[in-house]
């Protein structure tokens, strides 16, 4: 991954959440407060602007800027979570280019940060349920010598799979947990946006 690709990734996320803003909002309305689409759209639109306006000296600078922007623009649960995730990833990638395995390590650090901040376990019906399998898949492919686009595609597929698997779950973290059993039968909105984030990486890397 180079600086341009990092930027392209952020732009691709921006485009995806813009496009799916309403869907994310509806998913959140069903078991939360309906703002997840607006939150993601607001955050990544700002991030796209921010990383477009800067002259980054490393891949990490792009991701850190993205994270910082998310933290200061989004609010809600997803702002600190995604924001800190991107910042954690950015911290690991101090060079102008990053090998795919390094990207994998950065993504692992991001996941770690989400887990630490939010305290969610696998199966709690949160973004972790898409994030964790995605990072797993990414590092597996990267570890066996796969290219970035291959790793990213595997990650995106795994995230999709993880998203689907949130449907039957009962939420134990975030707003959806307030609904108790009524959270069952719905996709988790944060898992859905995480799937978009990894799909965007695959798109950017494959282009």
């Amino acid at each position, binding site marked *: 991954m180079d600086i341009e690709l990092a930027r392209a990734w952020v732009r691709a996320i921006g485009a995806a959440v813009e496009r799916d803003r309403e869907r994310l*909002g509806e998913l959140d*309305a*069903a*078991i*939360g*407060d*309906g*703002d997840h689409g*607006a*939150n993601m759209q*607001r955050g990544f639109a700002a991030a796209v602007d921010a990383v477009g306006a800067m002259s980054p000296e490393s891949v990490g600078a792009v991701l850190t800027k993205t994270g910082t922007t998310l*933290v*200061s*623009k*989004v*609010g*809600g*649960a*997803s*702002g*600190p*979570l995604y924001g800190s995730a991107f910042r954690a990833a950015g911290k690991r990638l101090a060079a102008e280019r990053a090998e795919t395995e390094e990207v994998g390590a950065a993504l692992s650090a991001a996941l770690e940060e989400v887990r630490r*901040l*939010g305290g969610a376990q696998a199966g709690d019906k949160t973004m972790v349920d898409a994030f964790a399998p995605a990072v797993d898949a990414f590092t597996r492919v990267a570890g066996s010598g796969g290219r970035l686009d291959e790793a990213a595609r595997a990650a995106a597929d795994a995230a999709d799979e993880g998203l689907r698997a949130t449907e039957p779950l009962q939420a*134990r*973290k*975030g*707003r959806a*947990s*307030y*609904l*108790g059993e*009524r959270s069952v039968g719905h996709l988790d909105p944060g898992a859905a946006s995480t799937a978009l984030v990894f799909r965007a990486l695959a798109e950017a890397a494959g282009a």
Partner: protein
Amino acid sequence: MKKFLNTADTYLTDALAGFAAAHPDLSVNLESRVVTRARGAVPGKVGLVSGGGSGHEPLHTGFVGEGMLDAACPGEIFTSPVPDQVVEAVRAADSGEGTVLIVKNYTGDVMNFEMAAELAGEEGRRVETVLVDDDVAVEDSTFTAGRRGTGATLLVEKIAGAAAARGDALEEVAAIGRRVDAASRSFAVALTACTTPSAGRPGFDLPEDEVEVGVGIHGEPGRRREKLRPASEIVSDMVDAVLDDRPLESGAEAIVVVNGMGGTPLSELYLVYGEVAALLEERGVSIVRNAVGDYVTSLDMAGCSITVCEAEEGFTDLWDAPVSTPGLRWGI
């Protein structure tokens, strides 16, 4: 969607601009989205800051003023403020005596305020956080995000605000805020869903003869759906839920808030209060103070919450202390 607004995107800014125009004794920064007292931090006084998603007016902006908050930071509709906003508010509130953050217990609010507290700490500011988590519709267990902060926020902000005003130190103000929260329990029922400007339609569909029981203040569905019943039965269940979670002995004294969600008229709230008062009297609990009205709302949702706070030593005097804010005012 039927609302007085220009565009969904400008709703919040326009409403804040109107709020600013209406209250020249407050200072509203539309850029940073921070509301403070026009005269700034009060020398020698512990600062009080609260914030959260917008859509709960008068909470929190309407509780900035003498005897209550020093600053509020309203987030987007139903979205907690970002750390920058909170830090800005802390800076405005801090006279050097430290600042108490009053945070409703939602994942997003907790995380954003935590980050802000860290940043403020890095600036050398002393910060204490009081978490409000009074809503018994949510189990307080590791299988949930914990009880939500709802109606008790009014009590915490008023009573901690009065403690700060009389000169209590940082830890004392925080301690009394925590005691108020610990002594308070709430439960809410919605008759209709609310509509956020950006969604443009109600958050859930509720048949004409059904109500959502155990709702929060963010338009989310409740714990369960029920047929609409007479107010006496609904309120009896609500009071049971509140008092089962934190029983009050006969002879206890309580402060009670019957809070409208935004779309329910005052006469219904009084009707509900009458039921609550009768039920507490039956249990030998005397209501020493009450507040009936719209305090912690959920946009245009029809519904109400009931908060019962045991009036521990000192609460009543602090509740009675002078306050002058857009949303609560007496003695000044």
